[in-house]
C-alpha cells in the first residue's frame, strides 16, 4: 500500500505574510511529493509496504537509508502542514499549557528553548516538541530523522515540529533563520498540537 501526498488544509498563500506562497507551493508539490514518490519506490514489494509510516520510523534500523530519508521526510512534512494554520498563533491552552509551564517555567521559556534548538541545528534538520515517557521535551534531529526513530538523541512522539532545512525558508529569509523561527510562532495551530498531546497522555 503506497503513501499519498496529503492535501494542505489551506491555500498556498494562506500563511502569508509569515510563510510565503511560493515556498509553500514548492515545499509541498516538489519536496514533500518527492519524499512520497521515493519512499513508495523504496518499499514497493517489501514488508514495509504494509506498515504505517510511524511503524516504519519506529523500526527504521530494519530498512535501508532510502526509506529512512524519504519515509522520515514524508512523516515530518505531514506533521508540519497539520500544525500550521492561517488562524494560528497565540498560546496553547488547557493541559498542554499547564504542562509547558510546569516543564519549562513559562511559555516564553519554552519558546526560547525551541528557538535555540531550531537555530543551532547545523545543516539540515528539524526542531521538535515531543512527549517522551509522559514528559515534554525539546530537541532537534538532522536531515529527515525524527524522534520516533531510535538513537537520534530525541525520544518520544513529536506534537510540534519546525523544518529548518534551508528550502523551508530561503526564498523569503535567505540566511536569516532566526527571523524564520520567530515568524513561525504566528501560525502555530495550537488546537492541533493540543489534540496530538491529548492522544498521548
Amino acid at each position, binding site marked *: 500500500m503506497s503513501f499519498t501526498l496529503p492535501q494542505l488544509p489551506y491555500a498556498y498563500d494562506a500563511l502569508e505574510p509569515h510563510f510565503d506562497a511560493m515556498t509553500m507551493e514548492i515545499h509541498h508539490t*516538489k519536496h514533500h511529493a518527492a519524499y512520497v514518490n521515493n519512499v513508495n519506490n523504496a518499499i514497493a514489494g517489501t514488508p514495509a509496504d504494509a506498515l504505517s509510516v510511524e511503524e516504519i520510523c519506529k523500526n527504521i534500523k530494519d530498512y535501508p537509508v532510502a526509506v529512512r530519508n524519504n519515509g522520515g521526510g514524508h512523516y515530518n512534512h505531514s506533521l508540519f502542514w497539520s500544525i500550521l494554520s492561517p488562524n494560528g498563533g497565540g498560546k496553547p491552552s488547557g493541559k498542554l499549557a499547564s504542562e509547558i509551564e510546569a516543564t519549562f517555567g513559562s511559555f516564553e521559556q519554552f519558546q526560547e528553548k525551541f528557538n535555540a534548538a531550531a537555530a543551532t541545528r*547545523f545543516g539540515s534538520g528539524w526542531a521538535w516538541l515531543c512527549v517522551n515517557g509522559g514528559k515534554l521535551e525539546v530537541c532537534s534531529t538532522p536531515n*529527515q530523522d525524527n524522534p520516533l526513530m531510535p538513537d537520534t538523541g530525541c525520544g518520544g512522539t513529536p506534537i510540534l515540529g519546525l523544518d529548518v*532545512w534551508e528550502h523551508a525558508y530561503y526564498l523569503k529569509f535567505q*540566511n536569516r533563520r532566526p527571523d524564520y523561527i520567530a515568524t513561525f510562532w504566528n501560525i502555530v495551530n495550537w488546537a492541533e498540537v493540543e489534540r496530538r498531546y491529548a492522544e498521548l497522555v
Partner: protein
Amino acid sequence: MSIKSLFIAVLAISFVQCKSVAQTTAVVETPAKESIHKFAPLPYSYDALEPYIDKMTMEIHYSRHHQAYYNNFMAAIKGTDLESTPMIDIFAQMSTHSVAIKNNGGGYWNHEFFWNVMIPGGASEPTGKLADAIKESFGSFEEFKKQFADAGAKRFGSGWAWLSVAQDGKLFISSTANQDNPLMNTETLRGTPVLAIDVWEHAYYLKYQNKRADYLAAFWNVVNWDVVNQNFEQAVR
C-alpha cells in the same frame, strides 16, 4: 544571543582583561599577534558567474554565509595556538577539536576553496596530467562529470561533493556532510581536494529551488580547470 553579539562579547571581555592588567602592573603591552587566518575578498564581482550562479546568491553566499563561518571560526579559536596553525594542520587533528571549530573552520576553508575553482576565465576542460589522471580513474571526462554530479545529487541534506587526490596519488570522488571536507581526519575517505561543489540549499535555492540537478549541470560552465590543475599539481607533488 546571536553569534554576532557573542563574538562582540568575547572581544569586549578580552579588551577588559587586557586593560585591567595594564592598570595594575603598569606594563606596556605589546599588541596581540594577528592570526594567520584572513577573510579573503571574493576574487571576482558578484555577477561574474551569471547566468549559471546568480548575483544575489553570490552576494549572500559570500558576505553572509561565508563571512559568518569566518567570524565564528575566529571566535572559536581566539586566544589559542590555532590562530597561528595552518588550516590543513587543524583539519589533520580535527578529531581533537570542538564541533564549533569543525563546522566553522570547515565552512571558512571550503567556501574560499570553492570561490577559487570558479574564477572566470581559465581552461574549460582539464588538460595535461590532470586530464590523463581523470581518464585513468574514470574512463573519460564525461564519465567523471557524471559521477561527480551523481555524488552531489546523492548527498542527502547539506554538504559538498569533492574530487580529491588520495595518499596513493589517485583521484577519487566523494561527498561530505555539512561543512566537513576530505582533509579532516574524521573522514573515512581522506585526500587533498582539487575540485568542489557546495550542495547546501543556500548555494542554489534562489535560482534553482529544488532543482539541484540543474545547478549541478550548470556548474561545469563556471569551473576554471587551470585552478583545478594547479590544485592537482600541488596535491601530487
